[in-house]
């Protein structure tokens, strides 16, 4: 066992920023908008660093797929305690088309290349809310998966996991190597403090990888037709006497964006 953990970190639009749809409806405005690490990825990094501090694993490698700016996200992971970073360079049209299937293929390839014992991911990204990458990666590698983890403990070469599911909490035991996706209550991520950020800037420990177009990026693309903002909410009516209670809605609430797409 190599004792190596791969942690996926995604650079997303910050959760507090108000999203705006581009005037040509091809997506949302990202230029100059504040981005940060996906909150669930922060939790995954924290869990990996905790495991290293408990000496249960040896090395934490942070991976991000995206353009040049993804290196900032990797640097934050390094400042939180990751040992190495891998930046898979995907930009332009490839980056716009990047989805869970493509990322899973990349992660699966890296896991084999790095001889990883564990892959830790966030349960979903807050921009696309797909909740698919962890599960797909496990399927591609034929590894067991522990998703929506709220508690993780290593026992020899097995993992005890508590999962947050609709009915409550589920306790499972899975073999390693495995894929775990982090849910909100797994831990509280530490801050990336300035001395650590300075360190990660000085020691350039991030490798650059170029993904293989034929096998990773061009397969299983989901064409995006258009992005529209939802219509303004209209006031509802209060029918307290009816079987179903309707709550009165106020117009003017912040808009959320939906993606319309056709799956082939």
């Amino acid at each position, binding site marked *: 066992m190599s004792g190596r953990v791969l942690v996926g970190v995604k650079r997303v639009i*910050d*959760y*507090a*920023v*108000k999203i*705006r749809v581009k*005037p040509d409806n091809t997506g949302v405005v990202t*230029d*100059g*908008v*504040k981005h*940060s690490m996906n909150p669930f990825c922060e939790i995954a990094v924290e869990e990996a660093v905790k495991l290293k501090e408990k000496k249960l694993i040896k090395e934490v490698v942070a991976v991000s797929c995206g353009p040049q700016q993804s290196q900032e996200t990797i640097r934050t992971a390094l400042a939180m305690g990751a040992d190495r970073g891998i930046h898979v360079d995907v930009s332009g049209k490839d980056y716009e088309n990047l989805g869970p299937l493509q990322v899973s293929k990349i992660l699966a390839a890296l896991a084999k290349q790095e001889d990883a014992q564990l892959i830790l991911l966030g349960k979903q990204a807050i921009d696309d809310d797909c909740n698919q990458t962890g599960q797909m990666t496990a399927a591609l590698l034929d590894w067991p998966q522990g998703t929506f983890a709220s508690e993780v403990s290593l026992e020899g070469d097995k993992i005890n996991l508590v999962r947050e599911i609709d009915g409550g909490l589920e306790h499972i035991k899975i073999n390693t190597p495995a894929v775990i996706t982090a849910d909100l209550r797994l831990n*509280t*991520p*530490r*801050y990336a*403090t*300035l*001395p650590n*950020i*300075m360190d990660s*800037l000085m020691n350039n420990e991030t490798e650059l990888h170029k993904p293989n177009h034929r096998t990773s990026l061009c397969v299983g693309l989901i064409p995006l037709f258009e992005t529209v903002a939802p219509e303004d909410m209209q006031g509802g009516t209060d029918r307290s006497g009816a079987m179903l209670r309707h709550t009165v809605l106020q*117009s*003017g609430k*912040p808009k959320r964006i939906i993606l319309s797409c056709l799956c082939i």
Partner: protein
Amino acid sequence: LDWQLFSVLQPADSMLPLMSTPRITTHYTIHPRDKDPRWEGVEMERFADEADVVIVGGGPAGLAAAIRLKQLANKHEKELRVCVVEKAPQIGAHTLSGACLEPSALTELIPDWKERGAPLNTPVTEDVFSILTEKYRIPVPMMPGLPMQNHGNYIVRMGNLVRWLGEQAEEVGVELYPGYAAAEVLFHEDGSVKGIATNDVGIAKDGSPKDIFERGMELHAKVTLFGEGCHGHLAKQLYKKFNLRENCEPQTYAIGLKELWMIDEKKWRPGRVEHSVGWPLDRNTYGGSFLYHLNEGEPLVALGFVVGLDYTNPYLSPFREFQRWKHHPFVAPTLEGGQRIAYGARALNEGGFQSIPKLTFPGGLLIGCSPGFMNVPKIKGTHTAMKSGMLAAEAIFPKLTAETLDSETAGLHVPEYAENLKNSWVWKELYAVRNIRPSFHNYFGLYGGMIYTGIFYWIFRGKEPWTLKHCGTDANQLKPAKECTPIEYPKPDGKISFDLLSSVALSGTNHEGDQPPHLTLKDDSIPVARNLGIYDGPEQRFCPAGVYEYVPLDTGDGMRLQINAQNCVHCKTCDIKDPSQNINWVVPEGGGGPAYNGM
């Protein structure tokens, strides 16, 4: 006088709310941790690092200073470590300005800014000035020589320019650290400035340490430049410590609120600059509006409203004046059919020449809007801020790289900076316009001021031998509520004017919720007793982000102040305008605050 009487006759009732409600202020600057039992045994040692120069604030002044320092270092082949700490999560995210930029300082700093892709894409083509009445508009001809004239200037999205300056700074080797706020000034044994310490993280809302508590970091430097912008919180401490304001007038301020709108293409006139004074403000309240048509490929306008913070009526709400101004028949047609995409607010300096403090002290200097070099009638301060940063760099560099460190104090003292500034165009420019703003303090208010400007500035170019004074601090100008009439503001219509909370949401502001409120009160009992009692709670109205709310007590009898610190957009207006001067704004955890994009 009423404040002195009040503190003597402090009624016992005011103590009751304090005992029955939890503390409002839990910040360690008000409740020190060394006396707090919850902090016993917590490791308070800080990691320290050395740089040659530390610059607090990554705005135009700070970045211009950093770039100039590295340009000089690279030219003379000297090693110089320059670090910039900035509380915004990315460079430019806390920048808010109109703005019409005079490119003089930028051209001096980076002569080939055009080839390097500086975002100055909109030369001013039309310059329109109006006096508004409730229904009509009186045009005022923009003659050459008047300070408001904008020929040769560019309409810019200042946040984008600051972001570009940040990229230029990184190219010449400046170390930029956005997301880390300078929270404390450090001093040598001899009292000179040693550097700064960044904010601690992981303190809970009640002031106790969390599991993830981490101390900030100390950055030591031979000299520290403070470029925090208008009314910086560290500068406030430095004024007191080094008596920097003993020979100047107090600074006076205004609040500027701004929105970005995507308008109907048919209404778009790129390069058009509109300014107005008059309605909806009365002639004794200083202020006015701006509306600039940008030319960056899409029909975007930047518009906003400025209100002088020396207003006297506690019922005045700068935010609502802004919203109602947009309905004026000259303004509303531009916005009809458009969509608002951003909102923000920031205080700006109005004191000008009379309010410039002493600029240097052992170990440090003040640059930019922090001491305040804004040319008020031109409403431009960026060019002077950048020039002050550059002059600071040029004064420091020879002293830093001298063979022997020529300083009596452990921190480098550079009085040459102030000398160079006095001999530069910044000083001449500010001297020429020094009397325009104070000239508004007359019976005819706005009209008296405009007549004064017409005669003494346009004709005599500010050469008159006298220097008018300001009226005292802005905080002292408020009249008690019972002497004033509440203002009837129209309800926002949701298409052109909006309510406060949806506006704040558009600023993208957010802070870690579980931290002590960074709007600290020196005395928790004063807001209800004095601000609400005498002035009817003006902070509910002048805060552009809805941070301050007076809500009924749970027990039902009386009110308490609720501070919604998460909404704060770091404008500093409360610290300036609080009539009791009880509010002390300090930095929250770095990375919090607005997320402006090209404001």
